[in-house]
């Protein structure tokens, strides 16, 4: 399950080392600013992202799923297919 997370450092897409049990997956990483508590004119840089943690033993499954999804995207791109609608994007032209 994806959940909200934020920090002052830009996170890596995958973090396999900080936990003995979990691997962290991130997506939609965005930079944003937050006012300094003392001086509102000072803007501090933060990052926010969506995060999911996967037990290390399940990570190969996740990788396989992710690779399959990437392969599908590649095939769709090569064949001009809209994966959402299933239609050939050239048919309407």
């Amino acid at each position, binding site marked *: 399950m994806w*959940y*909200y*997370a*934020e*920090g*002052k*450092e830009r*996170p890596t897409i995958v*973090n396999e080392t*900080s*936990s*003995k*049990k*979990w691997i*962290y997956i991130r997506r939609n990483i965005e930079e944003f600013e937050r006012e300094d*508590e*003392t001086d509102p004119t000072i803007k*501090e840089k933060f990052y926010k992202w969506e*995060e999911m*943690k996967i037990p290390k033993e399940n990570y190969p499954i996740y990788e396989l799923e992710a690779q399959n999804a990437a392969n599908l995207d590649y095939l769709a791109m090569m064949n001009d297919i809209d994966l959402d609608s299933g239609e050939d994007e050239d048919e309407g032209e």
Partner: protein
Amino acid sequence: MTDNFARLLALTGGNGGSGGTTDYETLDNKPSIGGTTLIGDLTLAELGIIVDDQLNLQSTNPVQNAVLTALLNAFPYSNVTGKPQINGVTLTGNITLDELGLNAIWVGTQAEYAAVESTLAEGTLVIITDDQDVDNVPTQNSTNLVTSGGIYAFVVGGYQTKIDSQNKLDADLVDDTNAAHKFATSGQLSQIATNATNIANKVDKVNGKGLSTEDFTTAEKTKLSGVETEANKTVVDSALSESSTNPVQNKVVTENLNDKYPKAWDVELTQAEYDALPASKYVDGKNYYITDGDSDKPIIYGFHVDPDESDPSDAVTYLMDAVGMEPASMGATSFNYGSWKNAFFMPKPCMLKYDGTVDYYLDPNDFTKKVDGTASDVGNINYAGNAMMEFPKIWFKFEAGTADGEGYFYVSNQKVDDTYRCWCNMDADGNEIDHFYVHIYNGVIYDGKMRSLSGVKLSPWSTTAYSSSATYAVNSIVNYDGKMWKCVTAVETAEEFDSTKWEQFAFNGNTDGTQEVNSATANNTTAKSEWYIDTWCDRVLITALLYLIGKSLNLQGTFGRGIDSGSQTAAEAYVTGAANDKGLFYGSTSNGSTVVKVFGIENFWAYKWHRTAGLFGNANGGYNYKMTASTADGSQANGYNINGVNYLTTIISRPSSGYISKIGFGEHGLLPVSTINGSSSKYYCDYFYTGTGFALVGGSANHGAVCGFYVYLGLGVALRGWDVAAALSCKPLANKEV
């Protein structure tokens, strides 16, 4: 002419007729008997009529009169033995019905009897002549059956007797258990006789006394009477005792031995030697046998923080008596205490009077009520005291591990050794006290005093001071004499402040640290501080207890986000007491608009910063801290101050601002030492803002995920705003000055 006369004429021929004969011999149709024509002088033999002259069992002929007469004369009735009787009267001579005990005699068939049955009087002898089956005769009102050859006789009003064709008792009468009067078999009669003998030999039961087969004798009674009360009585204790000389239950001994001594120990040493070992002794898996250990075993809950584990739950390992405990957490709708509901450190809500004594306790599930169910004073602004959480005496120890950021926390109901402290349970004189008190509600200032009260809408302090040269419309807000006022009667002309035209109300926020401390200490009844604002020792102890019971470093993820969003609008809309009926713990882990309540304290984080005494960011990049108001902690400051002067100084340095990834454990409690790689979902999940000055802790409705154990060291005591306000604490003096 009659028929007989006509017949005579016919026989004599005198009928006057002219055609008949007068000579018998000439008659054509002479009479005959048995085929013999009646003519001449015939003998009986000639007529075929035989009269026997003796008795014969085969003959159907008549018997000669003389023969019968001779026989009867030879056997008179008077000589018959066993003459029949009725009701004991022998049937002889002319006996009256009265002599027979009868009122009347009725004779007839069954059908005739049925017609007259109801009319027959008692004492009537009924003789039914056509009965062939005894069972078919009428049975009501019948008695003394006499039956023979199909005749059934009884006396109306007597008892029925049935006799079958063999003159034996009907078996039904023996077996009929419903009959009012029954016959008994010989076996039954024998049993009746046996029972009668037993009954005759019985010992009568006396009320209040028992019977037995032990043949209890007087001698035995005398002997028993001589035995002393409780002679030879053995009392087996169910718990260990230092004074009892009784034996102890096996299981109690076993349990205590198992507790005290491992079945096989790896190290045998003294208590002092054990105490000197590093904290790794708690997690090294060895069994230590302390040869001079104290049998009065305290409860010690502990946890270890692994600094190399980013998952906030997996980083925490339970130690000592916490091993095996089920962690607590806030569920979707209610709080799950896990194994911690009755932990010794759980506080109780109460109304604490200004003099530091408990007036009464509150219903932990509804603070608007006393424990007896009557209304409480949590919303009474005129009450001479405040709504507080009462904590018991708690001994604790924060201990650093060997790795950077590795830490141990132990909490006990006893002073386990000299490394355990009870800083929260020390008064301003340095004396230990049994209880310390933390606010239930965010502090509000009313009439110059900081209060902890329910039902107060938290409007911030107005910076507009009353001016005697101005005019004011109704609902104008000003501050005057350190209090907040709302105009209720317009001030049309410039005049000195007139309190009758203004209404005082409580406020919260936009005050600086000095103003907050002064309003908090205004509750004191002596010259020494009992009432004060939040203190660092209370904050770190309660935070560590939350890490303990939640087995997680993620406070918001375990207990609820609190009002961490909505900014000033949300904060000023809040009315204290929103979680009065939510128990000691409440919150939402999914939204930032729900009050969070831990250990009975509303908004322990989020909503508004808690200005907290005892921690100060010093100019050297480190921390100054003070764990108790007195100098018992080794500090030189007598009482808290607003600049951290004469506080203790840590050897650890403040990290840069960011999400906390490592905390240093020690005498100071918990202080951030690293923010590298921290985030809202890893390690401590809370933020640290580095700077110099008075500590603010918890975050506000402006801070979202950074709230929790968010330590802010910024502008210090001068910082003011809608999102900053202190709240009350109280450590009553052990020895009151009179």
